[in-house]
């Protein structure tokens, strides 16, 4: 069943089971994104993710399907994180999820690359990290990133390019054979 069909079932009959399918389908992307934003604070990220889905349930009638459902969810998640950060300044501001995340055993060179790339990513501005996260880890298009973060498209491209410009020299000496 597609997202649109599940959403229709939720709207027509408040179908909790259909919404549960949507949650199971999208929980990984939302929780990954929030773990990135909260610098790997899994408990806080999961709390915010839960709030995100409850908010999505309440506002589902407002979903206009001009973008994928996942993009809409990530936008809500980003808003929740921003609100939480405003209310509670102890929420980490600087995302650093890439370095903390390496749960899958990788071949040694790739694992080394993840490590070095994670370290290099931590030196970037938070906006650059977030743009790169959404682009490469979540696989979003530039337009979708702009929608999630409520940034102009040009700003997204600028942050992505700046991030890559900074990464390039940091990884220039990287060689998997050494």
């Amino acid at each position, binding site marked *: 069943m597609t997202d649109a069909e599940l959403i229709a079932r939720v709207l027509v009959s408040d179908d909790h089971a259909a919404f549960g399918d949507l949650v199971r389908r999208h929980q*990984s992307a939302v929780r990954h994104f929030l773990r990135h934003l909260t610098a790997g604070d899994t408990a806080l990220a999961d709390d915010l993710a839960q709030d995100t889905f409850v908010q999505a349930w309440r506002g589902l009638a407002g979903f206009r399907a001009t973008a994928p459902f996942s993009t809409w969810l990530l936008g809500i998640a980003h808003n929740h994180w921003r609100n939480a950060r405003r209310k509670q300044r102890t929420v980490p501001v600087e995302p650093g999820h890439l370095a903390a995340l390496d749960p899958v055993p990788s071949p040694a060179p790739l694992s080394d690359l993840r490590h070095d790339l994670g370290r290099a990513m931590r030196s970037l501005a938070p906006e650059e990290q977030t743009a790169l996260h959404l682009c490469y880890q979540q696989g979003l298009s530039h337009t979708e990133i702009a929608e999630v973060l409520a940034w102009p498209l040009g700003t997204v491209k600028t942050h992505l390019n700046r991030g890559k410009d900074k990464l390039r020299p940091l990884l220039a000496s990287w060689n998997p054979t050494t």
Partner: protein
Amino acid sequence: MEPNDLNSLPPDDVQLEAWLRASTTLPPLPDDGFSQRVLTALPPPAREDSVWRRWFCVAGALTGGGVAALGAFGSGNQTAGLADLQDTILATLAQLSVPGFGLAVGITVGSLWFAFRDRWRLLPRW
């Protein structure tokens, strides 16, 4: 994801893009009961008869309007009924032109829209 055509990028960019794609792909997070916690936190389901209640309200309004119209047409001769109805409608429209009344109606309609804006898609379709 743009740009997809890696061949159009400078060699440095091709390598960086390849590294970013190869080393940052996220493995799916196991659910670990997360979905169940979300479902538990949701507000209780709306009563199943809510759609029927809306239909009932619509049917009641139509019936009431019909009865009122029949009353207007049913008394006296039909021409007089039509004239009365026309007078009533014109008088009502004239009241709408009074700024205060128009503002009150506008506020009422706006409030109703704001209160039910997230529910309009659930109204029965014709």
